[in-house]
């Protein structure tokens, strides 16, 4: 029952570039080595990636030890930013909110994405057509979707106002209440990203060997029991991948917050990336903002490394299976 889903052979090979076959005879080796590119072929890509992605990683860490207003040159300020970060209530609050938002996102997105994914893995025509509709939110940018939802949630002129009137809830103060705003961000992000994770689960579900269902069916298991006894355990690895991507993703919602709530009301939705933006590009305290950013890198890298440790990076490939 608990057999792991198949990992594509190619992924396993990724873990050991050296073939474990016995050493080839000398003649074959020569044939194998002609026509091979050297590692130098990777240099343009490396340089490019290094300059615009890897170097900034190093640079942001260095900047976090400076005081920089964006006008003059950064000036070394030692660990000042870091000790400030350590005791900054705004940072503590942003971290708490980020974690809360991550938790909310995970708890909301996982069950819906799982059910939708398994459901859409069926090959009925109706399901295929509906799935095509379900995945529509994936096409638009976060900015576009946040704008649409902002109009919908407008307390006076949006759908929210109508709904509040029909249900006699009084005013539609969703974005104006501390809890409502955070829930709104979580919901809009879920609306946007559930299709992505449903696709992961759809791929996973389609990989489940039919024989398992046949066996369960012979044992007299109904649809619901089959779901819990066969589908869920078989999707365990997909769930790990999806969850990790969700966690890393929700640490970095930015556009949604910027447009939907602007970090407010008060600082009720000022999550870490938004705090970084506000400190860096509104207060122009770029040194301190770099410390905030560095802590974001540390958290995200930590989660990713944990993922690599727990699942082996071959699993990264397995998110891409069955498509």
């Amino acid at each position: 029952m608990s057999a792991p889903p198949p990992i594509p052979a190619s992924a396993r090979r990724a873990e050991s570039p050296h073939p474990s076959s016995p050493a080839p005879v000398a003649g074959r080796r020569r044939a194998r080595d002609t026509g091979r590119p050297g590692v130098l072929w990777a240099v343009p890509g490396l340089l490019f990636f290094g300059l615009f992605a890897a170097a900034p990683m190093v640079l942001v860490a260095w900047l976090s030890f400076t005081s920089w207003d964006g006008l003059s040159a950064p000036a070394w300020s030692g660990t000042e930013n870091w000790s400030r970060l350590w005791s900054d209530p705004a940072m503590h609050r942003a971290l708490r909110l980020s974690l809360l938002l991550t938790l909310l996102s995970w708890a909301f997105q996982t069950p819906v994405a799982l059910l939708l994914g398994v459901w859409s893995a069926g090959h009925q025509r109706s399901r295929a057509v509906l799935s095509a509709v379900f995945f529509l939110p994936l096409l638009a940018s976060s900015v576009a979707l946040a704008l649409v939802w902002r109009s919908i949630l407008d307390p006076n002129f949006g759908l929210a106002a109508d709904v509040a009137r029909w249900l006699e809830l009084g005013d539609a103060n969703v974005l104006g209440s501390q809890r409502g705003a955070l829930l709104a961000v979580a919901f809009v992000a879920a609306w946007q990203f559930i299709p992505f994770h449903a696709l992961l689960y759809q791929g996973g579900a389609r990989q489940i060997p039919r024989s398992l269902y046949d066996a369960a069916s012979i044992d007299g298991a109904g649809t619901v029991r089959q779901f819990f006894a066969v589908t869920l355990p078989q999707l365990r690895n997909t769930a790990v991948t999806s969850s990790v991507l969700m966690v890393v993703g929700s640490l970095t919602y930015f556009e949604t917050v910027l447009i939907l709530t602007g970090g407010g009301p008060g600082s009720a939705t000022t999550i870490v990336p938004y705090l970084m933006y506000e400190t860096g590009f509104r207060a122009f305290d770029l040194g301190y903002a770099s410390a905030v950013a560095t802590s974001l890198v540390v958290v995200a890298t930590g989660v990713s490394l944990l993922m690599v440790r727990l699942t082996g990076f071959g699993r990264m490939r397995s998110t891409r299976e069955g498509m």
Partner: protein
Amino acid sequence: MKTVPPATAPPPSRHRPLWRRANIPAGAGAALWLAIVLIPLYILVSATLRTREDYLERGALALPTAPSVESYRRVLAGDFLTYLFNTVVVTAACAALVVVLAVTVAYSVVRTRNAASRRVFQLFLLGLAIPSQAVIIPVYLIITELNFYDTLAAVILPTAAFALPVGVLILVGTMRDIDEETYESMALDGAGPLRTLLNLTVPMSRAGIATVGVFSALQAWNGFLFPFLLTQSRDTRVLTLGLYDYVGEFRVDVPALLAAVVLSVVPIFAAYLLARRQLVNGLMGVGGR
């Protein structure tokens, strides 16, 4: 490890009770989600066909009783086409850069079997974990130093760099699926690395390359943070930033704002209709095989 044959597209069978019986709770759940997806989309589209006054007076859900394309006209009369053009340039350049660089890197990783190439691959894997938001400050510094601030290059270069790890990952997967024997016969013909790449590896990895192209194109099309902080003027504004700025420009003219949103999604929607599979693969960043 023995690979169990997956149940992809099996013939309809009496032995698949999970999918055979009408599953009422599942159907109800799907219908509910359909409503959650469709109502906002309905508002989005129907609002654009109404006037500002009508929208403010009759609420978001009302039917467009007197459909008008005025909102679209208003959007198109502005700078929308400039933004669209900029977005197309950014998207094309990004996809081209990522494809070229990812192919060379992946080729080298797959075909050069030594510690160095393994390190290269690991570096790119680590790159998967860097959130672009976290490095926006140093990227701002670098772009400024390079004198690229407020140019399209300021958007293209970092966007491409951040799409590169996924591109490399996908192509390494795709290229590993090419048989060693095929390479050997190329080598026996005396083909050098460049000829092997162009005549064997690239044609055999076409699906993966398409996926990488689509993935990086989507990243560029929908990207916001880099244009937001690294460009200013109208001449360099891309669609996502244009949408953000429309809030200040169209104000409470929700129909016009939403018309701009619709127009910005139309090209991707068209791609979705024409090449759904490739687009979904690209969205997921999954290896096309």
